């Protein structure tokens, strides 16, 4: 994951090394805070969390980021990581136990798609054939970046991002519907 970040951080390695643990910690803290509050029915969008983390880090630490979009792009990857991690743990917890079996064990597999885990897997697949489209999805879904911000970070035109976004959504849709 860090490797990915390094690869497109534009060489600003020192800043990035500092950034990742901070953002990660900040996102976790925010999640915990919301968890403690537990307001049924009031959910928090991941993109809102990422934005909140940004505002806090700027305000409390006075840190200067290259720009907001750059921060959000990094945070988007971290957000994806956190959510996938959570979903994995949650699934394991839910699936403890299992049907009793005698003499021969059976392995009951769940054929239903796994929400965030399915998206994560599909995004990995997409990145293998078309890295940029996967990055666009990540920025939009987990980071809350606008089309213009995404376009600037990826060094392409906003029209290209729009087209990437439309194709990627159809592609993911189809993958997840399988």
């Amino acid at each position, binding site marked *: 994951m860090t490797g990915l970040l390094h690869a497109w951080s534009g060489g600003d390695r020192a800043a990035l090394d500092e950034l990742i643990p901070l953002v990660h910690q900040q996102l976790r803290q925010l999640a915990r805070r919301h968890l403690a509050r537990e307001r049924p029915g009031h*959910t928090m969008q991941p993109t809102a969390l990422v934005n909140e983390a940004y505002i806090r880090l700027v305000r409390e630490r006075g840190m200067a980021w290259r720009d907001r979009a750059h921060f959000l792009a990094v945070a988007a990857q971290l957000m994806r990581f956190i959510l996938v991690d959570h979903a994995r743990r949650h699934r*394991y917890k839910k699936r403890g136990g299992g049907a009793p079996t005698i003499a021969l064990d059976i392995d009951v597999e769940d054929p239903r798609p796994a929400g*965030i885990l399915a998206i994560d897997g599909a995004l990995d697949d997409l990145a293998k054939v078309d890295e940029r489209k996967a990055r666009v999805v990540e920025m939009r879904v987990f980071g809350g970046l606008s089309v213009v911000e995404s376009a600037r970070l990826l060094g392409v035109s906003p029209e290209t991002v729009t087209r990437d976004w439309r194709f990627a959504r159809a592609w993911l849709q*189809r993958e997840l519907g399988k």
Partner: protein
Amino acid sequence: MSEPAWERVVELFHSALERSPDERAAYLRAECGADESLYGTVLALVAADRPADDDPFERIAEATAADLMTGRSPRALVGQQVARYRVVAHLGSGGMGDVYRASDPALGRDVALKLLAPRFQADANFRDRLEREARAASSLNHPNIVTIYEIGRADGYEFVASELVDGETLGDVIRRGPVMVASLSEIGGQVAAGLAAAHAAGIVHRDIKPENIMIRRDGLVKIVDFGLAKSAAPGGDASAPTRVTGAVRAIAGTVCYMSPEQALGRAVDHRSDLFAVGVVLYEMATGVRPFNGPSEAALYDAILHAPAAAPSAIRPELPQALDAVIGRALEKDRELRYQSAADLGAELKRLQRPLAAAPLALPAPLPARAVRWRRAAVIASGVAAMALAVAAVRRPARVELLPTRFTIGPPPHTEFTRAGTVVPSVTVTVSPDGRRVVFLANEPGAPGRLWVRSLDAVDAVPLDDTDNATFPFWSPDGSSVAFFVESELRIKALGGGSARTIAATERGRGGSWNRDGVIIFGTAEGPVFRVSSGGGVPSPVTTLDRARGGSWHRFPEFLPDGDHFLYLERSGDTRTLCVGSLDGRTNTRLFPTEVRASFAEPGYILFVEQGALLARRFDTARLELGSDAEELAPSVATSTALDASFAVSSTGTLAYAARAATKSQPAWFDRSGRMLANVGIPADYLAVRLSPNDKTAAVARSGVNEDAPDIWLLDVARGAASRFTFNKWLDISPIFSPDGETVVFSSSRSGRFELFRRAARGGAEETRLFTAPDPVYADDWSPDGRYIVYSSERPGRSWDLGLLDVAAVRATPLASSQYNEYQGRISPDGRWLAFISDETGQPEVYLRAFPVGDANVVISTRGGSEPSWRRDGRELFYVSPDGTMMSVSVAVAGGHPSPGRPQSLFRVKVPGRSLRNGSTYAASADGQRFLVTGAGPETAASAVTVIVNWRHGLRP
């Protein structure tokens, strides 16, 4: 299938979208020419296109964030209050939320409570949709449409309370096999009637499928889940087309029931529902779906272009008239379909006319040998039969005692918990007064628990605190049930409260409880023990006859005096029904039998012979047997633990479950899923492996009327099969040595799975190769012949991989963690190990260095099992959770494996269950062909038959 060039796919996708929806298919057809794969891929992508403001991925991300933030899970709600409803049980998860059974104290009734998933609560779009569903359906008042009681918002939840339908889904029915024509037209007619009412009110359902059609126990059909319903037009003109909104279809995702117009993203109207009904009718008639394809693209293409095979071509006994009705419902052009649900309903009624009005539920077949039963038996189903049954129980002296039989299915959304897998069996036991049965059932994927069902009630009730229970038995007063869990014997009072632990025991195998409060129980590898029902330390009451090679005593059952008891003894290679006594003085062998037997008043022993349930006279005073046996049921399920799926009360109520057919036909398939040739006969197959030269397949399969699988060798060219192991114990998991000369397999012949070896050419005796404290199953043999990788199962804990040095017979752990690791497969160059681990919560295929290495590289992307290598080591196959054969290219660069992207090849088996210690396919050396054994449908036992006054069907 070759993957179309990515750039071309992207380009065609965008240019197709620039055209109007109606022109897109034709445009792509012209652009793609003969490239079916490209056409199908782009068409599916175009169909998946969504408006820009509609992004399900953000919602799913939010969903997870919401779960993360609130720590909510569906099951956590059970026991909680939502508005005035108390949540009793989680019934299932639908597209937009979870459905619970809840009680409504105000009106004293149970309801189905649908809660919008937390992830959607914040989304106005979804709130609207839920509300729209509820309002649409609640505006309808029709017996075939589920009644909505209340739509509301409380405690942070959007909820809908509706009628609780006590029954099963049509999907459950279809999974048991094709439906009789009479039932089909009856069910189809009711669906049509419900839809006619909805369409008249301007409401299109949009998601008709078997899972959305409930069949109540009395046969009344209810359409549920108007989740996608949308008022057709403000004016109420149902024929005015409307557009389906994108995300709606995204969530439904059931492409199989989509009409061509839906598949193309065109406007949908009431005739689209009729197409879906056509698909459902087709599936009911034939057991298969009309449109299929190895990929989604192919499925879209089939829906749009391929005519469905006539149902009578699949099942020749079907009437031509049914072909005509279904064919018209499935017309691609909606102008040619039935134009109204009422028309379709009338046609379905006409189908019924030449046939007698048949009951919905078919009676179980009568025993062939008990001829008198044919005349005497009262055959009925459902509530009427239960009323009869209860009347017979309550007034035995005054009514003429006729044997009465009816069946009970698993509670809604559950299945009977399988004990054993070779042939699924059902655990069922009858209360001493014969009025209640207790059985084991589970929600899919959840642990089995005990359910109690009064024969005079409609519903079964789950017993709390009985998860993972096995071998339940009743207290003599019928107030409690005892059972085994892990290494404990527990008692659960039916009146409530949590289960109480009575004693510690290793792997209990059946028990019995007398009026003096003495409990006796058998063990998997020991004698019969006794313990007080108040608790204590168990002490043995029988003695294993070590001299005769005795290894266990199981399934003790008190005779009426509460002192003597029956039990099943294993001695050497034979099993015998014996009588013992609490004082240990009686030790009488009755007769050899294979599985558990039971005493029945006024003096019978009920036992299983060649798969049939028989009754034999038994004099309890003299411990003497009559010479004749009479058949009570032609088929009764038995488990690998040697339990049998029947129980009898002293009042004459007998409950049993028949064996379910699980036969499948092995066949060769190519990479596109085309079947090349059948190999061998249909049977229950548990494992298949090919010899290194691809000429011989070693399979584990069971014989006729025999649960215990043996190893057979198949000559794959000629299809000839020769039996390789001969015994009544379980022989499974065969593997070949690298030179093909030796077969190693796992056998339970000494009570626990150990590894045995035998020359593949036969001749020499089988020799024991390796024994461990836990059961072990052979997974793979290293190419240099030095090692065997095996899976072992620590009972109650996890599965681990071990490495056996074959020459030194020395074992070392290979992968052992708190998670399950199994199905190890060594790469042909001997440097890598592919295996399954469920550390992420679902089984995935991993790769690590062999024999030493712990850096795992994940291969599969969305679950996988049964890895297998192509012989050149460049490609790895596995089976995805939905039953698709997957292929991954494996390149090794700089000492690290670098797996490619998994590609799906073809559907290899029905999704769902798979054996950790079995296999459903073997790939040929060149990876071009697959010998598949698990392609056939697998049916679980689906009903328990109850016979009241069973003995009155016997000869006097």
